[in-house]
């Protein structure tokens, strides 16, 4: 082929890439996020009696949103590789609780200095993740069920250890700094969140590990035939999830200044919602960290923005509304993601591309 003929082909391809980029799931989510943010900025900001600007459009509010989404954000980061490998981990919220009270116990009852306790807690998180990993890889058990079991087990252990009642408090100021103060302009824990996001992002998008995860998610058997150490890669994903849950536990403890057995109850649902909203396929194989981050942001902005709307305030229903809309948002996002395919399937020949009903992923 002559060079002259090649040029238009390239520019065509470039144009197609550009359009593909603009209509990618992440970009769409970004538009939604911006629209959402602008809406709340205009509708949720006002001037109060004393003439001070209050509500959504204040820096304080924005930092609060960031601060409040760090733990769920971390769990979402932990779940992204898991879901990409077509797995799931329901136990992360319970593990957060277990790690939080073990951290408290190590520091308070064990008399260990905070950094040592932190290190041990991270180790415990990784160990708990390893328990999931062993059951899932060595015994080839479905992750949904394994982690459903450890979901009860970890929370149950946390309650048994503290007999439900013990709450560890009185943490030193310099530890609380992690959860309650600002450092270099941002809430301190945001820096930890950003570093973990970068690390997981690099792992997923810039190393062969990431490619292995995707391959395993698409076709585990194929991956095995291609010579990938499927078991070891899968184990890595769950250990990583445990480790990140432990980090989230420490941040949670620092933000509230207390460690208690009910820490993180129900967080796994929000985290899964964020990951799926971010475009990670629950069947495995595709998903990105930027997508997950956008998903977390979309939920956090919705949740916090609603509480600033005068209408919602008058109804006294911020909590319920945000739950309701998060669920609805997830349904809409899911439907929207398959709608083009369904429509194009409907119009021409109907029976050519009949697929089997998607199986339950894990």
């Amino acid at each position, binding site marked *: 082929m002559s060079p002259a003929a090649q040029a238009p082909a390239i520019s065509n391809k470039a144009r197609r890439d550009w359009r593909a980029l603009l209509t990618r799931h992440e970009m769409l989510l970004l538009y939604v996020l911006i629209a959402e943010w602008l809406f709340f900025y205009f509708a949720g900001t006002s001037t109060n009696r004393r003439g001070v600007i209050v509500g959504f459009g204040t820096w304080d509010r924005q930092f609060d949103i960031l601060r409040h989404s760090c733990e769920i954000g971390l769990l979402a980061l932990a779940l992204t590789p898991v879901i990409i490998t077509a797995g799931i981990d329901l136990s992360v919220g319970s593990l957060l609780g277990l790690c939080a009270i073990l951290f408290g116990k190590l520091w308070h009852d064990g008399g260990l200095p905070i950094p040592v306790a932190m290190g041990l807690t991270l180790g415990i998180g990784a160990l708990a993740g390893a328990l999931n990993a062993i059951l899932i890889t060595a015994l080839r058990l479905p992750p949904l069920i394994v982690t459903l079991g450890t979901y009860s087990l970890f929370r149950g252990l946390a309650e048994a250890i503290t007999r439900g009642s013990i709450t560890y408090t009185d943490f030193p100021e310099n530890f609380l700094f992690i959860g309650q103060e600002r450092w270099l302009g941002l809430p301190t824990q945001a820096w930890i969140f950003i570093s973990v996001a970068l690390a997981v992002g690099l792992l997923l998008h810039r190393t062969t590990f990431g490619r292995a995860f995707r391959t395993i998610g698409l076709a585990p058997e194929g991956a095995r035939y291609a010579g990938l150490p499927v078991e070891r890669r899968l184990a890595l994903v769950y250990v990583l999830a445990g480790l990140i849950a432990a980090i989230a536990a420490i941040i949670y403890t620092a933000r509230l200044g207390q460690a*208690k057995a009910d820490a993180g109850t129900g967080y796994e649902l929000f985290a899964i919602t964020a990951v799926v909203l971010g475009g990670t396929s629950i069947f495995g194989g595709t998903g990105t960290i930027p997508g997950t981050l956008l998903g977390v942001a979309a939920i956090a902005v919705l949740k916090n923005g609603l509480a600033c709307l005068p209408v919602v305030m008058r109804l006294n229903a911020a909590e319920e509304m945000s739950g309701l809309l998060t669920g609805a948002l997830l349904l809409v996002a899911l439907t929207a993601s398959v709608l083009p395919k369904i429509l194009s399937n409907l119009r021409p020949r109907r029976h050519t591309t009949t697929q089997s009903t998607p199986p339950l992923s894990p």
Partner: protein
Amino acid sequence: MKNPLLRFCAAGAVLLASLITASAADSKLIVAMLPKSKGNAYFISCKAGADKAAKELGVQLLFDGPTDSNAAKQNEIVENWITLGVDVITVAAENKEGISTALRKAQKQGIKVLTYDADAMADSRSFFVNQATPQGIGQTLMDEAARLVGEEGEFAMIVGSLTAANQREWQKYVEARLKEKFPKMKLVAVRPCDDLKDKAQSESTALLSANPKLKLIMAICSPGVPGAAEAVKQAGLTGKVKVMGLGLPNENKRYVHAGVTDSVILWNTGDLGYLTIYAGVALAKDELKKGAKSFKAGSLGTFAIEGDNILLGKPFIFNQGNIDQFDF
């Protein structure tokens, strides 16, 4: 705009934009009230009293809280109110230490802070509207239980959850009172019901058959009392095993009338809400200051102040004779 998703988003954005309503700059005082959990009947009746007070005083009342008891959510809601610039924040603290950081932040921004129902750290609020100390509740519960069974025999407790701070506190004082005053009584089991009435019923049924000598069930969470009563009724032990606990009149009326439940203990939650709002507004208007000895709250009259505790008075005991006078 070929992509349906894109079209959908555009339509959504237009819709959202059209929804924007300029929030009228309200010149009313804004009082925010945070319950431990919103769905709890206890706090619903609290809100009824608060609404009444807000109407009388002409202030705007914000009432929001976690849908289940959750310390982390409480902090998030308070922090939201700070940026909304409310004038007064009143809090029933799920966790003492946890909430106090947020409350101190509110005070720094010039927002008046009160606690009610469950206190936070003393330096993070101006006053605590004290409906009854945990000690008082524990003692009242235990004394009433002892009275019902003639100060001897076995009894069991149903608690909301194993982790809720106030439940643990009450349980502690019940046990302390038991040890100190009633040597012939024995606490044989403590079971959680997850704030579910149905679970309380199953747990009580098991308790009844596991402990044939059981004389009384004490439920210290509001769904627990009707649950335990239903179990006793179904076991045909009405009158033989007494049921009592902390609860609301409406949920227990039928069991009290049927003679299953003997007494339901509650401070008047409506009054608690009413008093809290009055105190909050007085605080914001600088009518209530540190060191005051008493405080007048609208139609309820004057309340004593002890240190920085505004005292609502003794817990109230509902029984067959008086329960029909109350509707909440």
